[in-house]
């Protein structure tokens, strides 16, 4: 049986949609379902409608659901904006106070006085979401323990009283619904599965992988949707004796990371649009000085401040082409929560092996939402430092010309081994020069590295078979993958190692019809695909800040094929 359940919780910021959504997500995830969540939150702290969507499937499906089984509506907007997304005869659980609103005719509406129940019983309105959870549990066939266990973990630390109040609130909701509406029809669940899965966000996976991959220096500046990387590392890096500092801006962040990279540490910084743009000069410096540094870009809707809490994939052009001069670099983009651990590890290895800045492109959807994944098989991934060795060398030449363009590296402070690093053109020993022929040699050296790097870059992922090609990247893969079985004669190609451009692109994309699904306004990957295939690409774009629903894509593609 293919089980699938989609829930949206809407309310004003502060109503607690996030809390209850996370509890449901965790409960279902532990039950053995695959969860993906979607937070549609404003870039403002209070008083604006927000909503949280949760999808639970018996199979791995991670894209945003377009049709809902349940809608929790704590405010009027929740009904106005979202009830049209309910499935036929879907269920609405809503605050009784909400008036002057027309409910969809087919919807099963349960109006509950969450606010009053909470205030009457607990003197505070904040338990209304727990009450709602109790209500919700009455519609499910699973044991209420699945939720209550989570309460225990969550509230234990905060004291017995809070825990008990929450449990009381939960029961209150449960009983209210029974008393008022009698026995509701219950949703059948597949049998519970023992599993080792975790419910985690992309930012957190990235942070853990960084630690595993030997990152020991992180400098950053808060920015949505990348902040959690800073926050996670600030908390856990000290255990691994690494350094995490929040600095005065992103320029300081990248230059600090570069400083650590020069010194011989594995270093990283993470940001989003505005911060990434500020790092441009540093990027160019890292390329010129052949300094390994990993730059995570959790993309959000741009340009400029754009929509800080919203999704987009529009920094590809910048990652590939941004910055003055001819800069060696790599750009990779995981396309799935399950790839983030691996790709973060790859980013660090490529950065050190090729001594370049590496962009790891994430996006708001994959960065901030929660997904059920298996704990990665970490032993599969290694720290590969390339030509890095603790070897004293009186004639150390940091930029020695070599066959593949890669020179020996070590850390600064090795006896008798002197470093000279400069963003100015330099000789093999790092001293400044403007000699024409040497300049050319050094430039060739730096760019030569890309030739070899290209081979090692993650391969495109090809799924399915067929004449037609849908090419995509980043988390756009998730909805495309979901609709793929419904399309005839079509294969999906996910570009994951974006730059340097792979030689096999033309071959892999061979087709009469190339459709590119990506989520930005200019068709940034499409441009590159057109360049490499010499073919016009049919672009399927979205850029309103919300990730594609699978259905939207299929509709558009049906029109094309």
């Amino acid at each position, binding site marked *: 049986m293919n089980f699938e359940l989609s829930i949206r919780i809407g309310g004003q910021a502060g109503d607690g949609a996030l809390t209850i959504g996370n509890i449901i997500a965790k409960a279902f995830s532990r039950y053995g379902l695959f969860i993906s969540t979607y937070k549609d939150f404003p870039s403002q702290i209070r008083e604006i409608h927000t909503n949280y969507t949760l999808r639970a499937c018996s199979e791995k499906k991670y894209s945003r659901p377009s049709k809902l089984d349940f809608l929790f509506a704590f405010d009027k907007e929740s009904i106005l904006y979202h009830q049209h997304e309910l499935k036929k005869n879907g269920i609405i659980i809503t605050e009784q106070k909400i008036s002057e609103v027309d409910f969809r005719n087919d919807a099963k509406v349960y109006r509950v006085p969450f606010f009053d129940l909470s205030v009457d019983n607990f003197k505070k309105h904040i338990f209304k979401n727990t009450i709602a959870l109790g209500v919700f549990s009455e519609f499910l066939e699973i044991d209420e323990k699945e939720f209550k266990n989570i309460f225990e973990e969550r509230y234990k630390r905060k004291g017995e009283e809070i825990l008990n109040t929450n449990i009381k609130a939960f029961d209150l909701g449960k009983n209210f619904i029974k008393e008022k509406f009698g026995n509701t029809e219950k949703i059948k669940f597949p049998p519970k599965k023992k599993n080792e899965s975790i419910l*985690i966000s992309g930012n957190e996976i990235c942070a853990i992988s960084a630690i*595993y991959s030997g990152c020991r220096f992180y400098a950053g500046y808060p920015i949505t949707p990348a902040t959690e990387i800073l926050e996670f590392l600030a908390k856990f890096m000290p255990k691994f004796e690494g350094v995490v500092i929040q*600095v005065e801006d992103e320029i300081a962040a990248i*230059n600090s990371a570069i400083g650590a990279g*020069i010194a011989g540490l594995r270093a990283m910084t993470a940001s989003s649009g505005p911060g990434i743009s500020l790092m441009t000069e540093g990027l160019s410096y890292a390329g010129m000085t052949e300094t390994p540094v990993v730059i995570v870009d959790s993309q959000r809707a741009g340009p400029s401040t754009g929509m800080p809490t919203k999704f987009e994939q529009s920094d590809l052009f910048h990652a590939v082409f941004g910055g003055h001069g001819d800069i060696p670099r790599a750009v990779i983009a995981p396309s799935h929560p399950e790839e983030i651990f691996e790709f973060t590890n790859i980013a660090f290895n490529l950065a050190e092996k090729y001594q370049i800045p590496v962009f790891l492109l994430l996006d708001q959807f994959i960065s901030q939402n929660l997904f059920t994944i298996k*704990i990665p098989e970490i032993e599969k991934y290694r720290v590969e430092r390339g030509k890095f060795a603790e070897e004293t060398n009186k004639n150390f030449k940091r930029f020695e010309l070599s066959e593949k363009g890669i020179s020996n590296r070590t*850390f600064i402070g090795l006896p008798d081994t*002197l470093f*000279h690093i400069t963003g100015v053109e330099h000789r093999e020993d790092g001293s400044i020069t403007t000699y024409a022929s040497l300049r050319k040699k050094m430039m060739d050296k730096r760019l030569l590295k890309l030739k070899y790097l290209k081979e090692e870059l993650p391969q495109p992922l090809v799924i399915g078979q067929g004449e037609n090609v849908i090419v995509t990247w980043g988390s756009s893969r998730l909805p495309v993958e979901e609709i793929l079985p419904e399309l005839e004669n079509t294969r999906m190609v996910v570009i994951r190692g974006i730059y340097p451009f792979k030689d096999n692109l033309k071959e892999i994309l061979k087709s009469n019809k190339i459709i590119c699904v990506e989520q930005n306004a200019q068709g940034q990957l499409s441009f590159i695909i057109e360049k490499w295939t010499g073919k016009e690409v049919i672009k399927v774009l979205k850029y309103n800040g919300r990730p594609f629903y699978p259905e939207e894509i299929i509709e558009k593609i049906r029109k094309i094929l």
Partner: protein
Amino acid sequence: MNYEPKIYEAKKPGWCPGCGDFAVLAALKQVFAKNKIPPWQITIVSGIGCSGKISDYVATNSVHTLHGRVLPVATAIKLSNPELYVIGAGGDGDAYAIGLFHFIHSCRRNPEITYIVMNNQIYGLTKGQFSPTSSKGFVTTSTPYGVQEESIDGVLLALESGATFVARGFSGDVKQLTEIFDKALKHKGFAFIDVLSPCVTFNRFNTYDWFRKRIVKVEEPFGIRHLPRAIRFVREALEDGRFLTGIIFETKKSTLSDLILKDKKVPLVKKGLEVKKEDILDLFYIFK
């Protein structure tokens, strides 16, 4: 090893004859030699400008950064390997224009580095535009009708921002400069020195002679116990058209390394990158 100043010099500097920056280089080499610091244990991190070229002239480790970014890079290097003597060096444009916020944040963070600003009150390398320390009214290539802004003073700003070692030197007095650098290098924390370092080519106003008439040497770090007094003296002198040179303030505070490095014995760069698998699993288990 024979610790002579010349072992720290890489090539003949390309500065104009008479440039104040020669004195800074000379003083640094002397201090290195005096303290018998092996070249590989020193890292000079420099900015962009004539002053920033110093990193190309030393036979120590050197990192020539971007314009204004000496301090983030220097701080990171020091944290990565506290066994190094890390010395930041740049110009007044580098430190007080584009890099000013890094400067002030470094003062409050107190990383264990020495920071030398070669203050010639002009943009040397770009051939003579005004800098934040240029005097009001000064005619430069970008202010043909005179500078229109009040100048700022690095020493005052450092004092106000919590710096733990604040000094001013003068390129006309290598001996004093050497003494200051010597103390700075031994200071535990952020040691800042503004060096009045005349640009003989593009600043014909603030010349050696001009400074000589205006410099008042401070013999003791007289503000050592009293920051407000140090601030007042410096300010009064400036208002009076005089420059106090010497160590103006010195104090002890916990340093950035104290606060941020768990293990101060083994530098981070010398530690392996391996982690225990269980430790990583523990991180994942948080999300169970």
